[in-house]
């Protein structure tokens, strides 16, 4: 199994922080694959296996992305 060096987690965090909840509404209740630097969503679909297929169709490996499932509101703005 391949093992790649991932971008600095700080870069991922900084880029993810730029996404407002409303930016994520188009992907609500879907699986998404974030680019490893957190700057963009490279694939999305209600089915996780389909997201993985889309990632691989772009010539990426699964370890090039971060998988995530977005809630109905786009982002959970408060966790309790």
């Amino acid at each position, binding site marked *: *199994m391949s093992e790649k060096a*991932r971008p*600095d*987690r*700080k870069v*991922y*965090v*900084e880029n*993810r*922080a*730029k*996404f*407002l*909840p*409303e930016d994520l509404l188009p992907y609500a209740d879907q*699986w998404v694959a974030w680019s*490893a630097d957190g700057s963009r969503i490279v694939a999305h679909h209600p089915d*996780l*296996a389909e997201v*993985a297929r889309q990632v691989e169709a772009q010539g990426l490996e*699964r*370890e090039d*992305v*971060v*998988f*995530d*499932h977005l*809630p109905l509101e786009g*982002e*959970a*703005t*408060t*966790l309790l």
Partner: protein
Amino acid sequence: MSLVFPYLQVARGRPIVSLAGKVHRPRPVIGVTILGPAGAVPYDGLLDTGADDVLFPEDVAALIGIDLTNAPQGTASAFGHGGLLVRYAEATLRIADNQERREWRAWVSFAPVVRRYALLGFAGFLQYFTATFYGDREEVELTVNGLYPGT
């Protein structure tokens, strides 16, 4: 040696009353990769000192090639679901920062519901680390302890 992770910063879009007007929610969410016979899935996991186990969605088990058909089962109370059926399987977990990488086998629970993050609870995760949560720096430091079984 320790692994240091910045908190995930979740944009709220408007000032948060309980954080004196900050516009981002800092959360102790770290990158964790779960590996099985059919590959790896990088994911975000919430370090949760109140969680008993590690928990991922069942969809992730399928993607990494773990068959839960005859897996040991249990029930859990989680995120508004009382009596939630979870199924357990061994998987490899991996975390890394710029300086260090850790990888170990653990029993992971899988649930048929999806929540915002994987849960990184005691059994299989926090039991192997000394975790220091820096509220001021919004970072968490993980240092392996004597129970750590991996590499």
